[in-house]
């Protein structure tokens, strides 16, 4: 039994029961070894991927993200948007961003494809939906194959998260950057938190908010919901508005 008397009370039966319940587990020898091995393993697939990315923009938003050659930005505004997108993608691929703020320009995209891409944007970070879900959402439940094609021609992958759309049987489906990257992105989003609080300001933000960028690492606490954060004295950020 630990010394739990800092509240000035003697431990009661519930204290004893809880101490038994939370007794440390025997660690199988494989775990520390597995951890050490994982630390040695390279995690650079996404970094190499990032280095290959090219971005194009109009004055209204990002118009293309891809691995081919890219044209020069026509205006200063477009250049600024490209810089913003580059930074956001960089943070996203390092697990430091759970949403994109940079606008996209889908003006040259056909109507059907645009509605597919808009639907894909509604899939929350870290989750996946089936092609059929998109088809149903845009009111064309039988157009599953067309949805797949529309997503495959997504001009702004990553920012419009077509990688969150999988086959109904749980299969990956296709991806412009290849199945390995799609799989890596799913794993990345499974391990990136969405809400973080700053222990010095007691403000909770979406991961990727400008406030979080300046936060010291040891001031970072993760929350499961805004309500949880409120219950222990945090308030939602007014810039990134995590409740919305």
């Amino acid at each position: 039994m630990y010394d739990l008397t800092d509240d000035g009370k003697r431990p009661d039966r519930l204290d004893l029961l809880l101490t038994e319940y939370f007794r440390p587990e025997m660690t199988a020898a494989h775990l520390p070894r597995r951890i050490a091995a994982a630390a040695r393993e390279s995690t650079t697939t996404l970094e190499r991927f990032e280095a290959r990315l090219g971005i194009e923009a109009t004055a209204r938003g990002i118009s293309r993200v891809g691995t081919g050659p890219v044209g020069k930005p026509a205006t200063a505004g477009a250049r600024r948007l490209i810089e913003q997108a580059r930074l956001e993608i960089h943070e996203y691929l390092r697990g430091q961003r759970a949403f994109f703020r940079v606008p996209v320009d889908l003006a040259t995209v056909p109507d059907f494809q645009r509605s597919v891409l808009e639907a894909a944007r509604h899939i929350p970070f870290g989750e996946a939906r089936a092609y059929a879900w998109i088809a149903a959402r845009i009111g064309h439940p039988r157009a599953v194959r067309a949805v797949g094609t529309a997503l495959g021609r997504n001009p702004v992958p990553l920012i419009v998260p077509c990688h969150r759309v999988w086959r109904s049987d749980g299969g990956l489906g296709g991806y412009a950057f290849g199945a390995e990257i799609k799989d890596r992105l799913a794993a990345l989003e499974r391990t990136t938190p969405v809400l973080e609080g700053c222990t010095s300001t007691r403000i909770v933000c979406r991961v990727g908010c400008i406030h979080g960028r300046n936060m010291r690492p040891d001031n970072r606490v993760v929350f499961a919901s805004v309500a949880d954060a409120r219950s222990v004295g945090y308030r939602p950020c007014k810039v990134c508005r995590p409740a919305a």
Partner: protein
Amino acid sequence: MDAERGLMAKVARGDQGAFTELAQRYSGKLLAVAGRLLGSRADAEDAVQRAFLQCFAGARSYDARWAVSTWLYRILTNVCVDELRRRATRTAHDERSAAGALAAASSNHHPPAAYLDLHRAMARVPREARVLLALRYVDGLSYGELARIRGISINTVKSQLARGKSLLRAELGKRGADHV
């Protein structure tokens, strides 16, 4: 205490041996916290592994004013809380699959029969209080350490723990358990 800080300094320099030693020293306690919060051994091992990897990657930003254990618990609870969030959103999206996941989680965890009531009652305790209870009872952490780990005030720690325990008492009482 100082020996552990020395160990962290070695980890920050990329010393694999020191890292393995750190993992050996703490994985049991971290596994207990993660296991009780997440329910399944496999998920708990994943969470502990992720926490250690973050610790390895962020070792250079480790501030020696922190006790190594406090720092590790902060990283681990961040990982676990996020995992709990993910489960909550899964539940909202698909009740059926979440129920399946829950059943699978409890079937491969096997809480000892004596704690089955407690295990069920624990599920009624709000997440933040549950995290604090786990940290408090797995390693006897003080209110001050709990406050530091979750970035909250000591008074909030006290009120959350008291609320968690009174919910547990009420739940266990309802089940006719006479041991509280």
